[in-house]
């Protein structure tokens, strides 16, 4: 009865295509046989996919990005889980304020955050180091983890904790034996979102690293700014395919 109009459906379809267009457009360029970015002129090659495996450039950056993303997503998830459970258990009067505080990095323009983090790392001498980058990423991605965990906790029956306490469990026991197992999907979601966000983080990263520590987004950025290396197209295609696969797999599960 609703959502069946023809015109609306057509426009929605067009909007959907608009969203997919740039992702599809990249694909042919990754197969060009030429050294520079161009449509494959009847000649296809995988040379730019091979180039990704250069241990000095692309592969090194993939390694750095993976390391930073794993570290910062685990730290962010742990901090967010502790914070979320603390809020859920204690319901402090300052709860709204505290949640606002930890969500700040989403609202504040990324450049402003970047300037602040640049200032911090410059003061403590961690500019352009892996620990400095991890710290910056944790700050930037922790709000996403907090949102995922607060969402999972809001669906959790408060009486579960009371029931555990009533049955003789201490507060720590009830957190470990009851709360954490019941928000495990929220924990996983928080970790996954922060992993992706850290893997893709570009704005702050460009400010606080770039000479010794070069993440994958930073390398792509440099390539886009200087010359258009078709390896960027190859990397993009791999990332697009991986994302599409994960989304389709998740859809088919549910």
């Amino acid at each position, binding site marked *: *009865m*609703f*959502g*069946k109009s023809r015109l*609306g*459906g057509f426009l*929605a379809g067009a*909007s*959907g*295509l*608009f*969203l*997919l267009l*740039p*992702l599809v457009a*990249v694909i042919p360029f990754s197969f060009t046989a030429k050294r520079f970015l161009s449509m494959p002129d009847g000649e296809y090659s995988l040379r730019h996919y091979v180039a990704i495996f250069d241990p000095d450039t692309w592969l090194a950056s993939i390694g750095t990005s993976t390391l930073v993303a794993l570290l910062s997503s685990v730290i962010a998830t742990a901090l967010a889980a*502790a*914070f979320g*459970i*603390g809020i859920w258990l*204690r*319901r402090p009067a300052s709860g709204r304020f*505290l949640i606002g505080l*930890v969500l700040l990095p989403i*609202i*504040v*323009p*990324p*450049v*402003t955050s970047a*300037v*602040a*983090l*640049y*200032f911090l790392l410059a003061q403590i001498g961690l500019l352009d180091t892996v620990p400095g980058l991890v*710290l910056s990423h944790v*700050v930037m991605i922790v709000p996403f983890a*907090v949102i995922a965990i607060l969402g999972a906790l809001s669906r959790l029956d408060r009486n579960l904790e*009371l029931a555990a*306490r009533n049955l003789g469990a201490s*507060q*720590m026991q009830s*957190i470990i034996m009851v709360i954490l197992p019941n928000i495990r999907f929220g924990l996983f979601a928080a970790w996954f979102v922060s992993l*992706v966000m850290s*893997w*893709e983080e*570009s704005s702050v990263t*460009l*400010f606080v690293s770039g000479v010794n520590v070069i993440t994958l987004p930073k390398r*792509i*950025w440099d390539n*886009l700014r200087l010359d*258009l290396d078709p390896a*960027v*197209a190859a990397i*993009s295609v791999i990332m*697009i395919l991986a*994302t*599409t696969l994960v989304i389709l797999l998740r*859809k088919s599960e549910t």
Partner: protein
Amino acid sequence: MMRAQSTPVRRYAATGSLAMLWALPVILTLAYVLPFAGVTLWSVTRPELGLQNYVRIFTGADFQAIFFRTAWVCLVSTAITIPIAYLLAYYWVMGSGRRSRLVEICIFIPFWISVLVRAFGWVVILRNNGLASDVANAFGLGGLSTGRNVWSVITGMVHFMVPFAVLPMASVMRKIDRRVLLAALGLGCRPLGVFWRIYLPMSLPGVFSALAMTFIFSLGFFVTPMILGGGRVVLTAETVFVQMFQTANWGLGAALGVVLLVAVFAILWLSQRVMRIEQLMSR
């Protein structure tokens, strides 16, 4: 009885939960809020003590042009983003099974893909001698200018914003009770009338939050304009980058960051005011 919710357990709560609660806020205060105070300090101390950085920002014709361009680009891209996102949100929530799943995939694939990759996709399409000009040439529209200009930047920004704008709208639409729509039909309203008189007003809160979000996000936009504008469409955020790293003008960069933050909070405050007024007005 509302307050009844807020006190139980407290007296018996272990200190463990207190430490859990405060760990993150303390870390963020130390690693984020305090450094921001330092940035504010930089903006009035570098290169020397005084407000000259702010004076420069608000009086310099170059900066005024940048601010004006930023506001214009934000407004236009928000104005394009909202209707597209509304349409997609509507079909995602209300569409029949297959249509809804297709829309969902269209929203979420770009959502999860790096902003750099998405900008790169548009570079491929829009640059001089890119796909778009090839197509234009094929249709005999040779002179169509694509490449690095303000419309490229807006295209890329809209593309980035749409999936974000869909989410708050869809979450409000999902809460609309379908029986309310049936009730309107039953009272003699035609389906299109039901949309205008019932569905749209009920989904407005979602539109407002999407509006505020889109505008705030686009204010801070940085990567997309730099890649798609290629230095020809300089917006405020990019200026921060340039001042910090290309001209090493730290004080000016810091001051611009502060100005951006103030602008964002002003918009947030305004949008909350609007929401409240909207709630008070009885239609």
